Structures are given as structure tokens and as C-alpha cells.
């Protein structure tokens, strides 16, 4: 368990993972559930355990749509999406860990893609 990493994730997310009562409503409501290796409730539990490196290595952090359905419906106000975001930032902020580079952009472009989505994607996936 990496204590510093846990501390960093807790601080940057602002989430108190101890409020979780393990009902699983976050994962029940998640539209990306089937895409994810680790599901929203597992993010909360694994961050509590300090098992953050496993999450950082998993593709799950890029599958979260940040739709905030889990935040909206969590009966305990835990805000799992913010935990996912914090773990993703912990990964992306490491040197050489950008998940999106400008050279990839042209091939992704299509007429329907709003510019704003590209800006948001950079904010989410790159330093």
C-alpha cells in the first residue's frame, strides 16, 4: 500500500471514502459498467485499502464517462466519480503518462465532434 498515493487521491478528490456503506448503487447505475475492469464501488473500496497503483494501471480510469450518475445517486454522498477522476489524474500527471497526445487528434476528428470535447479530453487525459 502506497500511503502517499492514497493521501494524494483523497486530497485531490475531496472524497471521504469511509462514508461508503457498500451498497453498490454506484455500480448499479453506471452506464460504462461493462467496459470497466474495476467498477465504481471497487474504486472507492480499493482507494480505502490504499490499493491505488492497481487502479492506475487499469484501463478503467479511461472508461469512466464522468457522467456523475454515481455521484447523483449515492445515498451516502460519497461521489465515486471524483475518486475515479483523482486516480486518473494521479496516473496522467506522472512523467510520460499522457493518455492523449496532439498527434492523435487528426485521426479522431469527425464532423460531429464538438471542439469543446477535444478541449475536455485534453483536460482529462493529458497534463
Amino acid at each position, binding site marked *: 500500500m502506497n500511503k502517499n498515493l492514497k493521501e494524494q487521491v483523497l486530497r485531490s478528490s475531496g472524497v471521504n471514502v469511509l462514508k461508503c456503506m457498500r451498497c453498490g*448503487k454506484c455500480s448499479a447505475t*453506471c452506464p460504462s459498467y461493462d467496459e470497466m475492469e474495476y467498477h465504481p464501488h471497487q474504486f472507492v473500496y480499493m482507494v480505502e485499502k490504499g490499493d491505488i497503483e492497481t487502479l492506475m494501471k487499469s484501463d478503467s480510469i479511461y472508461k469512466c464517462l464522468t457522467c456523475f450518475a454515481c455521484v447523483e445517486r449515492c445515498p451516502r454522498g460519497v461521489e465515486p466519480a471524483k475518486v475515479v477522476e483523482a486516480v486518473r489524474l494521479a496516473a496522467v500527471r506522472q512523467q510520460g503518462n499522457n493518455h492523449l497526445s496532439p498527434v492523435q487528434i487528426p485521426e479522431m476528428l469527425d464532423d460531429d465532434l464538438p471542439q469543446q470535447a477535444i478541449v475536455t479530453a485534453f483536460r482529462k487525459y493529458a497534463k
Partner: protein
Amino acid sequence: MQRIGVFVCHCGTNIAATVDVKAVAEALSHEPGVVISQDYQYMCSESGQNLVKDAIKEHNLTGVVVCSCSPRMHENTFRKAAASVGLNPYLVEIANIREQCSWIHKEIATATDKAIILGKAAVAKVHLNAPLTAGESPVVKRALVIGGGIAGIQTALDIAEAGFDVDIVEKKPTIGGKMAQIDKTFPTLDCAACILTPKMVEASQNEHITIHSFSEVADVKGFVGNFTVTIKKKARYVDEVKCTGCGACVEKCPMKKVPNEFNEGLDNRHAIYIPFAQAVPKVATIDPNYCMMLKNGKCGVCSKVCAAGAIDYKQQDKFIEQKYGAIIVATGFNPINLDKYDEFAYSQCPDVVTSLELERLMNAAGPNGGTLLRPSDKTHPHTIVFVQCVGSRCDDEKGKPYCSKICCMYTAKHAMLIREKYPDTEVYVFYIDVRTPGKNFDEFYRRAVEQYNVHYIKGMVGKVTPKSDGKIDVQASDLLANEQLHINADMVVLAAAIEPDKTARPLATMLTTQMDTNDFFTEAHPKLRPVESATAGIFLSGACQGPKDIPETVAQASAAAAKAIGLLVKNSITCNPCVAHSDELLCNGCSSCEKVCPYGAITYQDKEFRMPDRTTAIRRVASVNPAVCQGCGACTVACPSGAMDLNGFSNSQIMAEVDAICK
């Protein structure tokens, strides 16, 4: 000259571990007026009390200071000990060196210093103590039960059994409450009506019990043993005495489209109605919001068909006043409103129901005559999903932070009953935890799983989506399998959290009782006084104090009755002599005290005074009713002229304590 004895308690190690008790006794022995200062291991023990008694006799003490625990624990013990050897009990003072000193400090030096200061303050106060004599006030031998559910009925029956008159005030047209709506009861699965209705009949036939149905408490005045309550008997537009409950009016009433509250709005009733067949009293009531005659004067059918001539369209709300010695609150609960839970589609889909609605759907007197059918198309449901903890254990403003306690068990009951009656139905229960403490409760839940093959899935439902083919898609977590499930259901049943009835809060204000942040009434002590409120003479029965199932409610109802009987058997009760009094020569008649008094104990009167020049003048001055005053001291703080003073806690005594502490 005062002769004061100081007694310092070790309380085992509770005090002695952090306070040097010998040093405290030694320091206090030098205080003015102190003639004896001792320490002892357990001052509250028999031998400890004897130590105090012997010292009072031997040294002819005029005041006693006991440095020990909080006065809430043992003040009474030492006062009784003093009284037994002839010292006025109000000449005993407690210095709290445990809760407010030894338990909160870690260093011996600090704690000892503080204990000495607290002891000095108590000695300074006892110098000014005056002997007080407690008065007596008579007890009215009649009890009021507010709420006519199973809690109120049981309490009333038990009090009546002891031979005292009891009035039940019920806001609905019939007594019976929530239990009357329930189909079967856990864990024995006997029919709720079969065990409740005999009690309702018993209550109505008992000569000691008066039922005020369709009535509300409008005002409460007075104090323990002597409450004056105004009861508002709402106009039901039917003469209760004349009505025979034949139901001819109900049959003929042309207004048939009124949502039926008793069936949770799942079917309709008439504008004139009797809630259910076994209603007590079995009397019709006209709903003025729907009655054509009352709304626009066009109809009058019920009045024509009533052979007893009981219909009275001109009936008005009536107020009656009655005196009571004790009041028992039994206002009960309701399921919370689920409109804010969009994810469960409760307000969009008729086949998503609450558990209480399911009770009615399964009841023989319910909208489908006891056959479980979907409300939307009246077909038999083949897949039913139960969702637990809807609004319970929630940390947001939509729900309640507490566990509603009864849902795990009634869901197991529902699941079992459905599997028993319709074995071709698949039943899923989504749970966070299954909580079944209670006699035969866990066995009951296990039976649902093992014998009836109910699918219990650990996880929560995230989304309920009604589909165009009439089915309902239930998206949920299966945490143990680490899967997200989609169940194609016919019906969804939501175990809604329960909350106290909305009438409880205004009632608490009238009764000057305390509530918690969830509007449950607060008991006087969470462990040792569970059925008494902190206000003397007010008792708590049933779910108004916290979520409860029927066995617990009945147990608490009988306990509340026992406490009320304990009060009613007394001819008079001893009053607290530590009450406020006003110095009429200082009072300037400003009314500040009257405004802050929470008990209504202060009144103003015009009084004649002789002036120095031998004339008389009329002045407006405050006077305190000592029987009503609870000694809270609010008036003494509010009084700008210093006319108000509290016996036992006089302004001069408090100042003496402050001086002693600051010296």
C-alpha cells in the same frame, strides 16, 4: 456561624486516578465555615452515606458539600441521607469533580487544582443555601393518549385495565392506524386484522376508554398531574351518536372518484365513507373536499337515504376541554414520499409500488380482493423485484440517515407470501445488509431463502426503467458476483424509509417535549428511561420515538402505560421547590419574564401597594405559579431589574460561586 462538612469521593479510580482526592479534602478543610473535610472510596455506598450522616449528627452540620459525580447521578442520594438525620435536603450541594473534571483532564496537577476550585465554589454557595420545603400538587386521575394506532390502543387498554379513565385522540375517522392496513404480520404470518380488530373493539367497549376519532389536540396547558388539553373534534358532517354505520349513504353517494387513503390511493371511495369494514367507531364521515352538497349545495342524497337522520351538513368543528394527569404520545409513522427518487420511477410507473401499497394489493379487503395483480393492467406479475433501503441510511436531503428497522423483515414476509401463493413468480430482493435481530427473525429470513427460494442479491438497484411493452427494466449491482444485472420485471416494490408523522413536531411544541433532528421524540434516558419524555408527565409509545415493529411497539406501549399508571395512582406529587419567585417591590412590570417562560408559569396582575407617603398605588407585577414553574431560570436572566430569583440557585448564590472560582 455555618458549620459545613466536605466529603470527597474517590469513585474507585474514576476520580482518584486523575484527582489527588486527599489534597482536595485538605485544601477544602481551610475554607471558611468548614469544620470537617474527609475523603472516601465510594461516598454513595451505604458506609459512605453513613459517614455523611454521622458527621452531620456529630458536628451538628448546617451544610454539606459532596465532591463526587454529576448531581444527576447522586444528588438525590445524599439529599435523602441528609434528610434522614434531620438536615434539610436542600442544604446539600454537589461539586461535580468527575464528569466535569477527572474524566476530561489527563494531568493530575490540573485536575486536582480544578477539583479544589469546584469544591470552593460549592462551599461558597452552600453558605447562602436556605432550607426549602417541597410543596405538593394534586394528580388528575385521567390519561390522554394521542394517536389511536396499535401503540395508542395498547396503552389505553392497559391504563383502563388499572381502573383509570383514558381518552384516545385519533386524527383519522377510525382508530387502528397503520396496523389496520397491514395484511399479515411477521414472523408468525398471522393476519393483522384478526389480532388488531378485537383490540379495537375492546377499546371501544371499555367503560374507561373514550375515543375521540377525527379529532386533534389543539392546545395543551399545565404540568404533570394537571394538564388542560383542548381537543378539536373536526366536523364529520355526521352525528356520531345517531349513525348506525349501516352504509346506506356510502352506497348511494354519487361521488365515487375519491382516492381511497386506506388502500393507499390504489382504488376509489365515495365522498361519504367508512374507512373499512371493522372501523371503530363505525361511523360515516363526509369528505368536504369532494362532497357536492358541501361544495355547491347540490346533492343531499346521503341525507335522504339515512334512516337514522344522522347527516348534518351544518356541523362545525367542536372544541372540548378536558383535564388530564398524564399524556401519552403515540403519533406513529408514515412511509416517506418517494417523488424525489426519479431513478426508481415511482411517480412514472404504476407498477412500481411501496411496500405499504403491496400490503393493500395482497389484502382480501384491498383493491383486488386479495389477488396480487399489477396496478397498471391487472395481470398477474411473474417477476417481482424488491428494493431495500429506499431512503433509509441516506446521507442526503432526500432520505433519512437512520435504518428504518422494519423493512428487512416485512420484505422477507412479502417475498415468502408471494412465493407461497404464486409459486410461478420469481422474487428478487436487493439488499445492502439483511438486519434481522429479534426472536425468530433470522430464522424467518432464512426460511425465505432456503424454503421459498427467494433470490437475495447483495447490491443496490441503480435504475428502474419502465419499457413500452409494459415490463420494467431493473438495472442493479450483484456485488458478490461483481456483475451488473438487468432484470426484466413485472413489478418493483420499494421499501420506503419511515418517518414520524407530520403532526408530531407541532405537538412536541405544545407539550414542550424534545425531539431529535429526525422529529422522533427523545426519551428521558436512552437506556434507563426509554418510555418517558424529559418533560414530566409526558410518555412515549410506539414509533413516534423511533422505528419499531409491532411486538416492540406493543411492549413499549405497555411500558408507557405502566409509567403513566405509576403517576396516576398517586393522589399528589411532590413539586420541585427550586422555582422562581418575583420580588414585587423590584418588579417594573415589563413582561420580559412572561415572554421567555416556556411553561406559561408567569402571569401579571395589578396589585395595590402602600407608598411611603401613605397613599396607595396600583402597579403591574409578575407572579409565578410555583406548581407550573420548572425552575429553568430563563426569567431570572431575562429580568432587567433583578426582581426574579430562583430558589436554590439565587443570583447571590451564583455570584458567590463565580467569586470563589475567580479568587
